[in-house]
């Protein structure tokens, strides 16, 4: 489960924002392009925090829909509207930028499009044990 590696990144980040062992809440945005397994991520994140001596932190996972905008013609579209092989979706799961290899603008055919939102894993908010916001680290 490669989600474990990203859970470690989230934990390290939260711990660097708060003083260690005092993380009380983490809000994570999951871009649908990367199609992260929520259960695996949440299990891993809890296990990692616990092994770092952080107990009872609230984990909130929020989906963010992946949206594209073509830099050549301006068209916008959603990943959920794209038909794609399971093997290619898995490649994008590992490396979201691979989307530029397999998906082209539905209007003009270009690969030169922007992932406007919903690419991958982002931390939206970290609340530390003393109630302070570590968000703007």
């Amino acid at each position, binding site marked *: 489960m490669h989600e474990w*590696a990203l859970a470690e*990144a989230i934990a390290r980040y939260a711990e*660097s924002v708060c003083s260690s062992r005092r993380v009380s809440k983490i809000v994570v945005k999951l871009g649908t392009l990367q199609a992260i397994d929520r259960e695996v991520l949440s299990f891993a994140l809890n296990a990692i925090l616990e092994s770092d001596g952080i107990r009872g932190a609230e984990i909130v996972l929020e989906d963010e829909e992946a949206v594209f905008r073509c830099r050549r013609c301006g068209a916008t579209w959603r990943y959920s509207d794209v038909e794609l092989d399971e093997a290619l979706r898995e490649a994008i799961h590992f490396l979201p930028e691979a989307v530029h*290899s397999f998906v082209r603008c539905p209007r003009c055919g270009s690969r*030169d499009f922007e992932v406007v939102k919903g690419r991958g894993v982002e931390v939206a908010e970290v609340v530390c044990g003393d109630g302070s916001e570590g968000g703007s680290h």
Partner: protein
Amino acid sequence: MDPREAVIRDRFSSVRRVVAFASSKGGVGKTCITCASALALKELGHRVGLLDLDVTNPTAHIVLGIDPKSTEIEEEKGVKPVEARGVEFMSPALFTHGEPSPLRGGEIHDAILEMLSVTRWGSLDYLLIDAPPGMSDEVLDVLRYIPRLEFVVVATPSPLSIDSARRFTKFLLDEGARVLGLVENMGSGSLESLCKSMGVRYLGYIPFDPELDRAIEEGRIESTRFYASVREICRSAFHSL
């Protein structure tokens, strides 16, 4: 906020040395030399990894005989490098399946952050990086993120390459990067004076080998004189051997 940066240092904790083969000029032999060095260091008894960072035009898998389409990716608390002739190997090509991969700089930066943060290298003596040409996100990002990074500059004796190597080496030294030295490819020793004038170590030269392309095609780079030259350079360049 992007959490990925926070974990990259950990990913390199099992790696003793990270060495990037680089030059702003394309076609000087970075890929061939990186791959041959990986195989040679392995032959010399080391545990070796290779990371292809030519994000929009990866080619190291061709030299190492990996077919991206038929290669399974294994997950184990991250993404495991694939095994290529005894070398731990990671490349964007494993995920793009031979399709074009045009990416703007910000996207290249994102792809590199992703690979650096999810790839789980084993216990390695050397992780070699095959850098792309140019002086852009790829080189700036490895300088920014990879701890203890060392550089080998690759150049040929052509006037365009010499001018590029001079500028690229100045860039690295100005950034405070560790430059192990310069390798002269497809030459016969004429770049030694360039190295002196720049104050970097001359690591040796690799002669032009008319058999190299065919050997790559046939998946037997180890049988070439090119490989023998690279192995000698590795032997003397990496002190600890």
